[in-house]
């Protein structure tokens, strides 16, 4: 299957501007022939480019709601972020009921599994067998970032499956125990996140995903709004199983808060995460646990959300308060202690494209990049299609770009050619050149 990515480009919409190349945290995007191109090996599916593209040319490939009809028994597993997308809504049961009304037979919350994952993480932290500081594996974009940019920290990553995978496993097992056949059960994750689309379709650390489809929160929002608006109080089913702690995982700091680890750092926003991981690499961060989320405000800021994440953060507080004080939960336990929460495989280092297999040649190329960089204007204008002059210099040395792609270098060249032409045009044949005869 190669390197699958949910984040893709719609070429027809792309106008070839420089917005996404500048914001991609791994410098994975170049503009070539007036269109953006994503380098598969470098993309971590963080979704930043989806957020910044004004032409809506960057998308996450998700499933349409119709896909649920392929299965006899349709199960929705919504991420807790979904609850925060609706104005004035406090009771998760409203959202869960609405999901059933639009076609799902059953709803199980990712938030419920978040609680179980928290408990299991606590146990692993106490055992102390993982390198300290332990880094949460909840955000798949960050896990990929670590594999690529911070490989020395791979052994610090918590080797536990995500709440999404955990709830999918619990759901399937529970329904099988109820007499359903596995092939008839369709489990659909409602996602705020592009990276989780990718890791449902191409999981990294588990053999197979129990998620059969992934539906974007943006798409389902449009389906839910009219249903929620029409719901009468007596229609609301009690479907919620989660507690405020599990729901809180969606926000930055939520996982840490739930885990009750005292000495921790919770960091959100990919640039901030990079700064923190740099410090960990230098052995300069003395904490037990780090919760890192690629999006600002955590999954509440996911690229497939509808609401502004600062507003969602405010709502999250209100929802948690409601749930604690007057929330109603259903009397059903689908958590099965036999289900495995550990990874099947460890993480591997993602090798970036080497400059050259031969170290001598690679070093020479590094020098060439540095030398070329010094001759460039170093204003990172982006016109060449690379995010920075440094990245452009590397592209040239790798043979992926030519020096004249830089408009400043092109202008220099045109000028020196013009000067040469001027000089040439001033020359006369020796037969009539007075000066020459004299000298």
């Amino acid at each position, binding site marked *: 299957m190669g390197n699958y990515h949910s984040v893709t480009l719609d070429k027809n919409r792309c106008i070839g501007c420089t917005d996404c190349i500048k914001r991609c945290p791994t410098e994975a995007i170049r503009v070539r022939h007036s269109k953006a191109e994503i380098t598969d090996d470098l993309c971590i599916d963080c979704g930043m480019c989806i957020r910044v593209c004004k032409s809506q040319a960057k998308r996450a490939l998700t499933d349409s709601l119709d896909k649920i009809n392929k299965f006899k028994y349709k199960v929705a597993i919504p991420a807790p972020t979904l609850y925060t997308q609706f104005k004035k809504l406090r009771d998760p049961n409203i959202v869960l009921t609405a999901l059933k009304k639009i076609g799902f037979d059953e709803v199980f919350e990712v938030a419920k599994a978040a609680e179980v994952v928290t408990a299991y993480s606590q146990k692993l932290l106490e055992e102390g067998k993982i390198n300290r500081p332990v880094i949460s594996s909840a955000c798949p974009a960050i896990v990929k970032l670590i594999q690529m940019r911070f490989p*020395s920290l791979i052994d610090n990553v918590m080797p536990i499956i995500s709440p999404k995978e955990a709830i999918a496993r619990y759901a399937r097992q529970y329904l099988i125990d109820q007499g359903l056949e596995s092939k008839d059960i369709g489990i659909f994750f409602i996602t705020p996140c592009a990276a989780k689309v990718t890791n449902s379709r191409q999981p990294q650390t588990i053999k197979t995903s129990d998620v059969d489809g992934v539906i974007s929160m943006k798409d389902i929002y449009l389906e839910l709004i009219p249903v929620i608006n029409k719901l009468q109080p007596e229609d609301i089913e009690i479907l919620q199983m989660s507690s405020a702690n599990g729901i809180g995982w969606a926000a930055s700091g939520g996982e840490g808060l739930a885990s009750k680890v005292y000495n921790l750092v919770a960091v959100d926003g990919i640039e901030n995460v990079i700064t923190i991981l740099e410090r960990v690499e*230098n052995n*300069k961060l003395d904490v037990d646990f780090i919760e890192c989320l690629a999006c600002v405000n955590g999954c509440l800021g996911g690229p497939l959300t509808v609401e502004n994440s600062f507003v969602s953060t405010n709502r999250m507080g209100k929802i948690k308060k409601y749930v604690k004080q007057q929330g109603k939960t259903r009397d059903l336990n689908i958590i099965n202690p036999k289900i495995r929460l550990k990874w099947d495989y460890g993480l591997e*280092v993602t*090798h970036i494209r*080497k*400059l050259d297999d031969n170290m001598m040649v690679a*070093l020479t190329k*590094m*020098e060439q990049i540095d030398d070329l960089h010094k001759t460039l204007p170093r204003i990172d204008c982006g016109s060449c299609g690379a995010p920075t002059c440094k990245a452009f210099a590397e592209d040239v040395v790798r043979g992926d770009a030519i020096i004249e792609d830089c408009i400043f270098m092109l202008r220099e060249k045109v000028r020196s050619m013009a000067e040469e032409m001027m000089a040439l045009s001033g020359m006369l044949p020796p037969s009539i050149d007075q000066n020459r005869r004299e000298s």
Partner: protein
Amino acid sequence: MNLHFDVEGGEFISAGVASSKVKKVLKQLAIQPEIIRKISVAMYEAEINMVIHAHGGVIDAEIMPDYVHVILKDEGPGIENIELAMKAGYSTASRLAREMGFGAGMGLANMKRYADILQIESEPGKGTTVEITVKLYPEQS
């Protein structure tokens, strides 16, 4: 490949630019993560020392096919007793530096631990030169 850096003194907050640049280059060269970590931790500690204990200095890093050699040279107060300074926990860091989280007295001990070869020359009143060598493929030699 040679990299040269001028390091300003007293700039605690932004310190670490040189080691982070060297780290970046080594990652681009696809060197083993553990080896990169050794170099960057040792070099970072030495770089910070020249910022907080001396008033900055110059760093020259030489990246060769089989080793990295870093020379950090300052004209600061020098180290009176190197053996004592090497002891884990020994520190003369200022209150300000301590408030910034430095001054555990672990820097030189860490450098010793991570560098394959560590050489320190220092003359009180004149300055300090630290040389760190890390082999890129230790199993071969």
